[in-house]
């Protein structure tokens, strides 16, 4: 078989697919108006920024994003892929929002949503496809995954991270059982065997992906993509790639809060932010942050455009936050454009965007159960 020059160009090329089929039941206080993918994280980012940056840093220049509902804030944030340099004449970022069929009100899973757009996947030319979620925040290089995939001559490669058993993170994540050769034997639901956290990331040939979707077109009992893949374990080679870098999974308020505060250490920050692996995000044109005469700031991460007059300890502060004098903030996450007025005391709290805590209010949560002030609330 001869390959045209254009075909050569697409050999070993990867189509990136972001599957935003993410469970929100334990984080719903932050997801009334937005998907998990657009929850603000790490001071100036949104959760989606990390996976998109991983894709462009891995030289993937075509990305399909399959949303569920509530995608308005994503559309706003993504700006046609501009911050990731994915607003291309050819290739770039494509958003696929679920089609609404009024005649069917059955719950539609990720398989259904992707299948609605099968023709788009069919007509792309990339040889491989990588499917991943947004809420597994990491810095994985998909090129390395492909290298391993080719080395092992695998049909499918899935990505996992090995963690210590004592680790309390990743409670609701699935794990993978493997053999000595690194072949995936099984997918294990929650908590059973926990050292190999499954990062819900798959690499395979685009053709195989299309076959999978086609095969499942009639059997509607499993709509989750990962189940479909692991059903194949007896007749396809499913190999694994071990990722060793920074990983958190944002699937609950507790995880979101805990992992955000974990960022307040130089080691963690260096793990997530490398010079060679930039994380891109939407630009907001804020001035630098101002620290006034009586400001006390200790062990904090702060974005631009803030004005700090009061005291802040061990907190993550997003853009354009105002902390008035005599206010005290401890172990909190203050999202964009929030205000803490004079004399207010906050401990273990999350203030969602545009909210405001009035004078002398006292709000105290705990590390495992932080108080959440919803978007735009004034209390």
């Amino acid at each position, binding site marked *: 078989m001869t390959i045209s020059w254009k075909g050569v160009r697409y050999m070993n090329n990867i189509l990136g697919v972001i599957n935003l089929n993410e469970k929100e039941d334990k984080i719903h206080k932050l997801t009334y108006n937005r998907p998990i993918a657009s929850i603000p994280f790490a001071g100036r980012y949104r959760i989606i920024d990390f996976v998109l940056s991983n894709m462009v840093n891995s030289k993937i220049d075509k990305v399909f994003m399959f949303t569920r509902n509530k995608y308005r804030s994503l559309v706003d944030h993504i700006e046609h892929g501009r911050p990731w340099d994915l607003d291309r004449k050819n290739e770039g970022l494509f958003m696929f929002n679920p089609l609404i069929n009024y005649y069917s009100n059955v719950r539609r899973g990720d398989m259904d949503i992707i299948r609605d757009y099968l023709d788009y996947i069919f007509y792309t030319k990339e040889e491989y496809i990588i499917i991943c979620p947004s809420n597994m925040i990491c810095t994985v290089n998909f090129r390395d995954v492909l290298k391993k995939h080719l080395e092992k001559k695998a049909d499918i490669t899935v990505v996992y991270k090995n963690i210590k058993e004592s680790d309390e993170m990743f409670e609701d994540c699935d794990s993978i059982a493997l053999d000595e050769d690194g072949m995936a034997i099984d997918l294990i639901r929650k908590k059973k065997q926990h050292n190999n956290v499954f990062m819900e990331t798959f690499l395979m040939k685009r053709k195989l992906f299309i076959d999978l979707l086609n095969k499942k077109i009639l059997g509607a009992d499993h709509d989750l993509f990962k189940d479909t893949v692991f059903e194949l374990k007896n007749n396809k080679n499913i190999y694994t790639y071990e990722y060793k870098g920074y990983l958190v999974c944002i699937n609950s308020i507790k995880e979101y809060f805990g992992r955000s505060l974990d960022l307040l250490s130089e080691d963690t920050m260096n793990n997530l932010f490398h010079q060679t692996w930039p994380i891109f995000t939407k630009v907001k044109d804020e*001035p*630098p942050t101002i620290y006034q005469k009586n400001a006390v700031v200790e062990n904090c991460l702060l974005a631009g455009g803030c004005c700090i007059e009061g005291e802040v300890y061990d907190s993550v502060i997003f853009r354009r936050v105002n902390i008035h004098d005599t206010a005290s903030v401890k172990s909190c996450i203050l999202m964009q454009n929030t205000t803490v007025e004079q004399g207010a005391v906050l401990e273990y709290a999350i203030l969602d965007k545009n909210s405001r805590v009035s004078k002398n209010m006292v709000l105290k949560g705990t590390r495992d159960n932080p108080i959440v002030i919803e978007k735009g609330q004034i209390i």
Partner: protein
Amino acid sequence: MAKEVLALILAGGQSTRLGTLNKKLAKPAFTFGGKYRIIDFTLSNCANSDINTVGVLTQFEPLVLNSYIGIGRPWGLDRKDGGVNILPPYLKEKGGEWYKGTANAVYQNMDYIEMQNPKYILVLSGDHIYKMDYAKMIDFHKEKESEATITVIKVPLKEASRFGIMNTRKDNSIYEFDEKPKQPKNDLASMGVYLFNWEILKKYLAKDDKNKSSSHDFGKNIIPAMLSAGVKLYAYPFKDYWKDVGTIESLWQANMDLLKIDNELNLFDKDWKIYSVNSLQPPQYVSRESKVVNSMISEGCKIFGTVVNSVLSPGVQIGKGAYVSDTVIMRNAIIRENTIIHRSIIGSRCEINEECSIGKEDSSNITVVPYDYFMEGGTVYE
């Protein structure tokens, strides 16, 4: 298609008096206010005043400036109709030459201006710090049926002899222009912001070009020539913050001005944002043992020491036990442990090692550490 206004930003001048900081950088490209470059102010003023056709005239060390401005995307100036054009001197049919003065620079771009075919031409300087709504000036120009309008600002009378001074009648019309007068009659100084009717300016530029003894300068030649020929000139009074940051002292002072509460420039004004190319750095980190007071800190900074009355650009690192006061530190400079800095400007990408001492607390001078400077540990630098 005819444009109403074309803005031309003069960004080609040599930064002689800032040369101690960096000899290879055009003045408009110098860092200011932490994350900005000086030209951001003029470009943002254009964008916020709805002027979307802007020519930037460059000549001296333009490389950084060229790549910084690009197609003007960060300022929203990447427009289908208009946009930003960088205009260096170029070879023409009859040969080429460098820009010989502000007026000559505009004259050499006659073809570009004709291509845009504007009614008015707004001449701006790329090295001033101010926020100004040019639309208001244009309205004033139309209302007065002016042919050339010059923006003026009140300066202290004793400093007036450093500026071009406009002597005006009650209706703001100009009857006399004194370039750097020994005995100023007035305190209204030209800010170097001119609005001309293009048809009129065109004639005077052509006439001036033929005059071999002219220094081809707007202030020295064009305005006096217009005045003596009876062109209708008006002074448009500007009352807000304005600073020419042409010297080390004024650059330092303008940075310090930002630290005053309710400072006039107010970078936090949501209705008049100053846009810039944003760096891709994570949020700033302030550690437990550090202290930051009355300062402005940008993204990507890592602070482990003490920072007082200072302005830090993106990516600056301050080591443990270091003490920085009344200082401007530019992009990605690293200050290591136990170094003490007073009243200084530290250039971009400097590496200052442990236990250095830079500047003096009680000095009236500003100590300058040039861009990319590597300082051995323990150095005393004044």
